[in-house]
């Protein structure tokens, strides 16, 4: 009985669903390094694969945190899907950061239902290495659907939201709040797997 409980506990610990408050560690679920050592340490090793990450900010910031990830994922023969980005991604600047623009798939959909539909399609298509969605508002249920789609398809999803959503509960595996700071960004970990959130750190990234 005790051994069984131990085994069950071990499994939960391994998945990062349960973690020891004393020693926030790394989850053993798949992650991809963010390319920023300080950030990796705070979020359990890197961006969680097959899961949803939420990036909240007042001004739609935080995209540049993903630049090393995009460069890394460019090597996979899969799309990097951008659903409703706030501006035009500037191709030469992306190439200069070793992001292959041939992998970039821009999807413009109406805000709301259509954008979510497109993101979910992209996640479930099995053809995307990463799906990013910029949304103005989204319901808790919809976030759950995105997380589920990411999980089932084993695809990485990033959702950019306005800061007001901070108060809303979320099933996302990772939540970051971003504020501008000098020539970089200040990131606060609101939620992560296998560890406490609340840490805030400066990341010298700039796109």
């Amino acid at each position, binding site marked *: 009985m005790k051994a069984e409980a131990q085994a069950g506990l071990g499994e939960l610990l391994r998945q990062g669903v349960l973690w020891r408050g004393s020693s926030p560690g790394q989850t053993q679920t798949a992650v991809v390094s963010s390319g920023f050592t300080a950030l990796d340490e705070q979020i359990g090793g890197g961006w969680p694969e097959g899961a949803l990450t939420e990036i909240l900010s007042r001004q739609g910031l935080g995209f540049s945190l993903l630049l090393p990830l995009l460069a890394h994922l460019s090597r996979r023969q899969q799309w990097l899907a951008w659903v409703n980005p*706030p501006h*035009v991604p*500037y191709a*030469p600047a992306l190439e200069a950061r070793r992001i292959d623009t041939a992998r970039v798939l*821009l*999807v*413009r959909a109406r805000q709301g239902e259509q954008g979510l539909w497109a993101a979910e399609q992209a996640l479930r*298509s099995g*053809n995307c290495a990463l799906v990013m969605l910029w949304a103005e508002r989204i319901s808790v249920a919809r976030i759950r659907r995105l997380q589920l789609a990411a999980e089932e398809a084993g695809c990485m999803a990033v959702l950019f939201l306005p800061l007001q959503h901070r108060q809303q509960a979320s099933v996302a595996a990772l939540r970051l709040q971003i504020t*501008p700071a000098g020539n970089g960004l200040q990131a606060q970990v609101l939620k992560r797997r296998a560890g406490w959130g609340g840490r805030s750190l400066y990341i010298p990234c700039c796109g």
Partner: protein
Amino acid sequence: MLWLGFYFPQLPLDVFAADGEAVPLAVTRRDGGRDVIDRCNSLAREGGICAGMPLPGALALLPGLQVRQRDRNRERQAMEALAGWAWQYSSRISFDPLLMLLEAGASLKLFGGFSALLEQMRRDQPCMDCLQHWALAPSPMAASLLARARPGACIHDRGRLVEQLADIPLQNLTRNSQARELMRGIGLSSIGDCLGLPRPELARRAGPELMLLLDRLLGRTPDPRPLWRPPEVFSQRLLLLSEISHASALLFPARRLVASLCGFLRGRGGAVQHLQWRFLHRDAEPTRMEQGLLRPSREAEHILELFRQSLERLELPGAVVEMELQVADWQVLQEEAGDLFPCGQGARDEKFLERLRARLGNEAVRGIQVQADHRPERAWRYCKPMETTEAGGRISAWHARQPVWLLPGPQLLSLRHGRPWHEGELQLREFSQRMESGWWDGNDVQRDYYRASNPAGRQLWIYRERRSGNWFLQGFFD
């Protein structure tokens, strides 16, 4: 030679509706100055309608009866659509009224016997149960006659024709009323009666015309027929029995047109990439809808699925009374097994993109490319996803200092207290670069670029046009 005849008794009804069985429907013809029922569907028959009934009587009996005049033009078009499909089985196709005849001798060898051929055709048929009435015979006229009178007759051998045809009434052989009258006069009612008479005797009494018919029927004389030539373009219309005002309801009738198109394409070994739909209204200009596929296809289900998603974007100014499908350019499909049933990464990719484009529109799904130009607004362009990058512009180290977000075009900034303003007064933080470019094409620019920040801490990429002194916002740092 062996001829396979297919008879389509429902065709005059079918041309009017995809859901021909949902309402009682009859088509009429003019007969002696009045309209009489030519044929009707099963719902109308249940209501007591039968062929030959005068129209006013039929309407009195069944007030809800939908009536259309027989439209031979549409029937001909529908027959041609069927022929387009059948072209894959035989290149010698001929028509009789509501009948299609295929020279099947060569196909029998190819498909390994008649039953294999027929089974293949039925599995592949462009519309439900439309190949019910068929007959195989050594002469086209016999195939035609048997398909109508003895569906399912299968005669390979001329010797067995006589016995099969014997009891078919003579009126089925010819529409010539004079000849029919004559036959009746001498007491002949069936084909067997004629064939039982000594030939010189019959020739003397019945005249050369009937003799020729009989000789052709039995395959004793050649029966030269104009052969059908397949058209180069596919175009088919479908008149809707009831008007459709919800775009989503167009899917059902579309099924018929797409099935017919796919038949046409299979017949020609072709595939399509662009389809043109037209939806005709009673009092408005027709609505057009273009449907594009990423790769040529002739899979009906695939085309229909994309059509269904395109419908979500379709706005109709009024109810649709008729719809038309046109394909002006089709191409020969590379006959690889994998082309028809695509699988694997590439094909999955295409289906995914097609799904997005069908629902969101072609313009909504794009890629981007670098263009060789120093001016940021011209240093990139939208492209089709998957479009292989032509030798684009060269990437330099200073591109890495440019921001990832660009505005679609430079945006003039207002000045307050002599300083550029965007959601607050902008602070210049860093000189970025001087750009002098484009003097060769008349759009020359002389700009000084800066990184600036607004009070909220947002970093902007702005420039001063050196000649005018105006400030412009070109992008955002993130």
